[in-house]
């Protein structure tokens, strides 16, 4: 039965379209102790940078209405330690592994991509929401020019499939998606978190030391779904949908809107077994539908 959830994403056959999102599933180890994560279609590593990073000081998460803000600051062990200590575990899993790469300069992106591409991973997801320190701290993915640069240059060194993860704060998301396509990205995923703000009214100070933080969770779903719909209607390369997925119904909305697979982030914090639950519900759903494979509903809504 589970076969009917199989989807093809580029050259990869996924058991099902459910992939765990970067930064919300570690490298899989923690959740592997809670359920059989090999039921999943895939998982994305937490965001990696060339060098280890300690992450941000101060408060790192804040609850909002049907969502949360985070300012983790890309705490990660760095590419080398990752390759040594975590990648073998990820590769040993019977699911697709995607490596999420970040950088605060073009050079960092290129170096990290080159290194990880040599490890022959299933796919690289390029997180272009990171601030470009040379560009006054504006994230690469906001403007077409910086997006073009980072995609073009990383594409040159990446020998595995390259997916670019778009920022919802982009000035013109459709144009940014086109730029990715033009520069040879194999796929795009969207969305990353939304730039947002919170105040500690008691102490009359901002909550996050970094001022702004990233909003995720079901609160963003209607906007993220709109973006996925718009982008998937306007480019040829496949789209992975992300943002606020909590239930199988949310997954169906993303697929019908045009996503070929989805990523689940924040929901893992609310229910650690949400992946298992959603896959179970999707199996039930499809067994009651007059279709043979879930792919048949992809992009069905104009």
């Amino acid at each position, binding site marked *: 039965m589970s076969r009917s959830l199989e989807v093809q994403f580029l050259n990869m056959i996924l058991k099902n379209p459910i992939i765990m999102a970067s*930064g919300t599933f570690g490298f899989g180890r923690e959740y592997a*102790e809670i359920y059989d994560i090999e039921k999943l279609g895939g998982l994305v590593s937490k965001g990696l940078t060339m060098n280890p990073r300690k*992450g941000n000081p101060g*408060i*790192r*998460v804040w*609850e909002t209405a049907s*969502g949360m803000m*985070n300012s983790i600051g890309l705490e990660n062990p760095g590419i080398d330690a990752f390759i040594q200590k975590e990648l073998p575990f990820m590769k040993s899993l019977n699911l697709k592994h995607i490596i999420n790469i970040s950088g605060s300069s073009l050079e960092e992106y290129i170096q990290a991509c080159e290194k990880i591409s040599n490890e022959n991973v299933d796919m690289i997801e390029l997180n272009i929401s990171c601030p470009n320190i040379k560009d006054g701290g504006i994230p690469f993915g906001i403007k077409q020019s910086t997006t073009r640069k980072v995609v073009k240059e990383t594409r040159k060194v990446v020998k595995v499939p390259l997916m670019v993860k778009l920022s919802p704060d982009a000035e013109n998301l459709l144009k940014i998606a086109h730029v990715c396509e033009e520069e040879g990205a194999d796929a795009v995923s969207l969305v990353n978190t939304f730039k947002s703000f919170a105040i500690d009214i008691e102490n009359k100070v901002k909550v996050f030391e970094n001022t702004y933080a990233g909003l995720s969770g079901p609160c963003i779903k209607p906007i993220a779904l709109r973006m996925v719909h718009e982008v998937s209607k306007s480019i040829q390369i496949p789209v992975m949908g992300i943002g606020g997925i909590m239930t199988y119904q949310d997954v169906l909305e993303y697929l019908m809107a045009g996503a070929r697979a989805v990523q689940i982030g924040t929901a893992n914090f609310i229910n650690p077994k949400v992946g298992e639950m959603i896959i179970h519900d999707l199996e039930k759903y499809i067994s009651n539908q007059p279709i043979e494979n879930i792919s048949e509903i992809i992009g069905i809504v104009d």
Partner: protein
Amino acid sequence: MAIISFNQPLKNDFFLLKISGKYKADMGQFFMIRKDSQSMFLNRPMSVYDIKKDGIIFLYQVVGKGTSVLASCKKGDEISIYGPYGHGFPLNVKGSIALVGGGTGIAPLFYALKQLRKNKKLKFIHVYLGLQKKNEFESNFNDYTDSLIVHYGGFITDYIQYEKYNVIFSCGPLKMLEKIDRQAKNHGIEHYVSLEGRMACGIGACLACAIQTKNGNKHICKDGPVFKGEEIFYYE
């Protein structure tokens, strides 16, 4: 989903919440709990206060939105509960021990006290509790401890007779833990602290609860909540 057997209001905004079911946990471990409400999106970490055959008990105080939602729970309500998570206090301790709790930091100490009672190698167990005001749950400790010192307002740390102990378990405000740790170092006492921190996942995946330690970044939910005092309080 589990069912609430009671949610008993105590003095000073404290509550005892019992959730029915079979539970197992080490002392010092915690669970993530959440009641369905517009005002509560993330789970909240709560230490084990006690485990009975038919349920688990938490002691919490209302301090904000999430705990207010918990306070509105009634017998029979559904509640989400995940766990046990984290690394608790070490069972295998020797000599004489003091448990020191401040405010809601008292919660894990009752279960710890009961567990430690099974440790026959311990000479005696003393309990120190610091609270703003008198409350109902303090007397529960009497049944299991060799000595109970409760202090209201001020600093409980001023009352600890450090020279008596080989080991201290403490939980409460960071300032309190630090004070104790300084004395513990002076007296050569093995000191374990249970830390609090804002959490999202509770299992080490989101990296929300990072804390800098002598041994680099650690995550309270996964590497803790119990740490050796010397790992947290150190001079670089």
